[in-house]
């Protein structure tokens, strides 16, 4: 018993040390910094003030953009991913399924930076707008708009949404659909009453993955938003690396963590309800 306990701790030690040094300690540092003051040449000077939190309003636009585009982007991903995952899990023949699944992942093999550059060209003046112009459909400005950021988000995060939903649908016992049909339910009602509720854990997991990552996103808004569509991530980069206002940056970071914690708590509550009090399905 004693030896086994010791062995367990030995195996857990690397992960524990990693989390302690890379997650817990930095979080404490950020938390302490958030109450400090900016030095004359930037950086951090110890102090205890709530001024940084009082100033959060100065970065309201970044918060607003993030809090709007993260949920909207998550929803857009969900609406596109669900039918795709449904097709892959329940309709595609097993031969095609593997190929199509690989096609969903393939973009991940290329750096997001390169893929975003591609979108800059596609959405820029020489890309889709000029094509629309040639067709006589006007010359809309796409790049550096929230819409461009949204497209980048959906493009980049779709696989993260497709896979959990695919897994949930793939694991769905097909005999339940037969049972539903046998009990007098036409196919579309079987979808609403059986398929959809039983795929909710997958939907929740996909939404959570995409949403949390979107809240911290900075590359896509920086490249496709061109400094006009600012996320909290961009604000953080700016505060820490450009204006070197570490205490204010730390306060923004703490606010971001709080928002995420609230979201995750809400997620766990909802999934628990869907699972009817059962714990083993809450996180896939």
């Amino acid at each position: 018993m004693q030896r086994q306990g010791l062995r367990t701790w030995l195996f857990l030690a690397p992960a524990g040390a990693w989390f302690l040094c890379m997650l817990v300690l930095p979080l404490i540092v950020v938390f302490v910094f958030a109450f400090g003051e900016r030095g004359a040449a930037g950086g951090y000077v110890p102090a205890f003030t709530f001024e940084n939190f009082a100033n959060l309003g100065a970065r309201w636009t970044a918060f607003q953009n993030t809090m709007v585009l993260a949920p909207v982007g998550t929803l857009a991903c969900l609406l596109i991913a669900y039918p795709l995952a449904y097709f892959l899990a329940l309709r595609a023949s097993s031969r095609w399924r593997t190929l199509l699944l690989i096609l969903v992942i393939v973009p991940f093999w290329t750096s997001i930076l390169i893929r975003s550059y591609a979108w800059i060209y596609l959405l820029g003046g020489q890309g889709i707008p000029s094509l629309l112009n040639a067709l006589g459909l006007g010359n809309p400005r796409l790049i550096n708009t929230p819409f461009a950021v949204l497209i980048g988000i959906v493009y980049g995060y779709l696989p993260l949404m497709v896979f959990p939903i695919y897994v949930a649908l793939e694991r769905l016992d097909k005999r339940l659909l037969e049972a539903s049909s046998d009990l007098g339910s036409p196919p579309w009602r079987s979808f609403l009453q059986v398929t959809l509720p039983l795929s909710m854990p997958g939907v929740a997991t996909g939404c959570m993955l995409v949403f949390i990552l979107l809240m911290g996103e900075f590359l896509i808004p920086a490249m496709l938003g061109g400094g006009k569509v600012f996320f909290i991530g961009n604000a953080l980069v700016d505060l820490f690396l450009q204006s070197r206002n570490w205490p204010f940056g730390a306060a923004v970071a703490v606010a971001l963590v709080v928002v995420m914690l609230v979201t995750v708590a809400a997620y766990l509550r909802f999934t628990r309800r869907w699972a009817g009090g059962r714990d083993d399905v809450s996180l896939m």
Partner: protein
Amino acid sequence: MQFVVYTLNGVFSTLNYKSRHILRVMESNLKSATEAKATPIAELRDASKHYGAVVAAQGLNLSIRPGEFLSFLGPSGCGKTTALRMLAGFEAPTSGEILLDGQRVNDVPPHQRPVNMVFQHYALFPHLTVAQNIAYGLRQRRPRPAAAEIARAVDQALETVRLPGFGPRRIWEMSGGQQQRVALARAIVNQPKILLLDEPMAALDKKLRRDMQIELQTLQRSLGITFILVTHDQEEALSMSDRICIMRGGRIVQVGSPRDLYDRPASRYVADFVGKSNFFPGQVATSSGEGTVLAAAGGHRIAGTAPVEIAAGRTASASLRPEQIALHRKADGLPVTVVNRIFLGEHTEYLVRHADLGEFLVLVSRQAEAAEGGFDPGDSAHASWADGAALILADD
């Protein structure tokens, strides 16, 4: 007339239980009156199902009588499940016809057929409670019955399967046997014309299975619904069914009452599948129905009845049930050596060896054993049977 009552039944099925009960009584009264010329409640007409080159079912012809308990019996892959799934509507026949109540239903989807199924692994909805599972079928009806009526019907169904008060439970809180009852309740609450049961007891342990078999049989009698059971368990089929349809390789081999199949199997396959039997291979010497004689190994001639005529000269087998053979000490019949003995309570099963005919089983009753004295492995004895008691069956 039957049809009229069923239609009425459909119309009134949302009414309270009392009136349904009256209808059921009317129905059962009618049943006896119409039994003689009853139209089949379900029919397979030359129904075949092919998956590419694979033949799952070939030319099935079967009439199912209203109110009967019919079993499809056979090993896995014999086509019994395919037959059931064609009746439920999950599979469309490649050729031939499926009829329910005299109506061709080949193209009618499962949700529009007046049959319900108890699935092999129950297929209960894990996201719904027991009561919601049972209410599922009633809630699909249009117009949807009032909530109070559904609740009453669900309670009644729970009562029927002896699970009163289990409505609010979650499916995973129920044991295997209880889930089986929920699956049964979920099907019968809809008052189907036919209840299809796909190996419903395969997942239960032996004791529970026996209890459930008795309960199912009682339920079938009290509800008067036609039950069609798929099973690979011959004991289950023999004990529960009015008629058994034995299948092999996608074809129907023989249909008959359990007694018919046991006493008059049409082939060695059936005799082997229904109950235990000894088979002595040989060639038909004289072929004339009841007076058929088989020339077995070592020149032994075994006389018996051939349910299906076999031409002289053909190879065949003489089938003798272990209980048809007697074992005694006096020198009468075949000299045998006792190889093994299994005590079965009321009977003892002996495995004996004869120099020419090889090993075979003899079932000795406790009484007979008391008269003869027991035999031990290694003992010499004599085995005999009534002349002409054997069945001469074609090898297939």
